[in-house]
């Protein structure tokens, strides 16, 4: 059968590659994944990209396509969830209790707070929302270094460029160079959700099967192994 083509947020690469291997092992069918920024992928789908399935790193870009009737709305599901954590370099590893009024600014001293760029990278947007919610934002806004991706933010912390950073739990777990010093309360930011949907143009019969598989317990185990929260039952 025709290959299933998936457009997925770049941060899913490890987990999704594992899921695809498993799917190929079971069905003998292949899935091709194009990993890029959700914004890029959404625009490409808008321009007629040959994608069967889109997995976004946030709701906004899925909504963007939904508004333009470019996804099969019936197939849309919130697939995965994630948590935001505060990380620090190995050297300043004292745990931090993340609560309203936390004096993150003095913790940073004259250092920077590394996070995804607050208006372009989803993790940055969630982080900013959380900080605002907790009333921390006004004091740290000027100290934020908006990285190109969560990975870049993580690197900034692990290289000692920034004392603290806000990243996804999934990324933090895999980097031995940083320590998780606090987890943001789940209600402090909009739910971190990776929605999935079939595209409106998809004519590939295997795509539906793949969609089923990705929601299966086998796949869920693989996602969880990477630290994601699986949202589908």
């Amino acid at each position, binding site marked *: 059968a025709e290959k299933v*083509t998936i*457009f997925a947020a*770049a*941060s899913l*690469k*490890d987990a999704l590659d594992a899921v695809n291997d498993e799917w190929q092992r079971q069905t003998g069918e292949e899935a*091709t*994944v*194009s*990993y*890029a920024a959700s914004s*890029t*992928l959404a*625009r*490409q789908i808008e*321009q*007629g*990209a*040959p994608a069967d399935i889109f997995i976004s790193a946030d709701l906004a870009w899925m909504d963007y396509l939904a508004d333009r009737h470019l996804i099969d709305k019936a197939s849309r599901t919130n697939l995965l969830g994630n948590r935001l954590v505060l990380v620090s370099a190995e050297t300043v590893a004292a745990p931090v209790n993340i609560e309203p009024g936390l004096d993150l600014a003095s913790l940073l001293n004259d250092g920077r707070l590394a996070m995804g760029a607050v208006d372009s990278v989803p993790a940055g947007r969630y982080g900013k929302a959380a900080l605002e919610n907790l009333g921390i934002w006004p004091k740290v806004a000027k100290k934020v270094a908006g990285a190109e*991706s969560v*990975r870049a933010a*993580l690197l900034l912390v692990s290289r000692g460029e920034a004392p603290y950073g806000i990243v996804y739990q*999934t*990324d933090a*777990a*895999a*980097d031995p160079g940083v320590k998780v010093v606090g987890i943001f309360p789940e209600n402090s930011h909009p739910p971190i959700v990776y929605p999935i949907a079939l595209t409106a143009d998809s004519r590939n019969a295997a795509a539906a099967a793949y969609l089923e598989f990705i929601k299966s317990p086998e796949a869920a185990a693989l996602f969880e192994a990477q630290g994601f929260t699986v949202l589908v039952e």
Partner: protein
Amino acid sequence: MALSDAEWTAVRLSLRVATVAMIFSLPLALAVAMALARGRFWGKSFLNGLVHMPLILPPVVTGFVLLLVFGRRGPIGAFLAEYLGLVFSFRWTGAALAAAIMGFPLMVRSIRLSIEAVDRKLEDAAATLGANSAWIFLTVTLPLILSGIVAGMVLSFAKAMGEFGATITFVSNIPGETQTLSLAIYSLTQVPGGDAGAMRLTVISVIVSMAALMLSELLATAVARRTVAA
């Protein structure tokens, strides 16, 4: 350091994209360089600016513009697909187009510099010997600007190897079709634990490019020598 199948695919694709981009942009780059170096026409500044555009704009914007213009719904993209069967979007051809456009200003500048250095008295001499402009260009100008052409091709090739922003925006990151080495490296940098893989691919990319670079210099020397010996 044996390469995996996927890595091989990316290497081959990168080389194909870079080579095609370099070769196909050459004639147009030559023509534009000639016009900028020699021409006196209305809108020359504008043409000059246009040529520099891919440098000035963030690559993402260039890629986006390409997507809008050469995409399957874009005005030119639709036309080409309809009448020439030439599809760029989400094909390796699109990656080559993006690379060609990103490398274009570099190629044009190199060639233009060489053209400006040509002693026009030699072209005059050729004319008195009976050569018309086309022949003069082929037998005098072209051989004399060979170093500029080679330099331009090298820059274009190297740029194509490293191109990332415009390519991923225009043709996405589809393994086997549009995932060049550069894009593969990017994918790896986006996940935890990808660093080793990214490093490995980077080394491969550097080796391949360096080999191409040295080949080009050797070729240039050989061509320069052959021009005389033959």
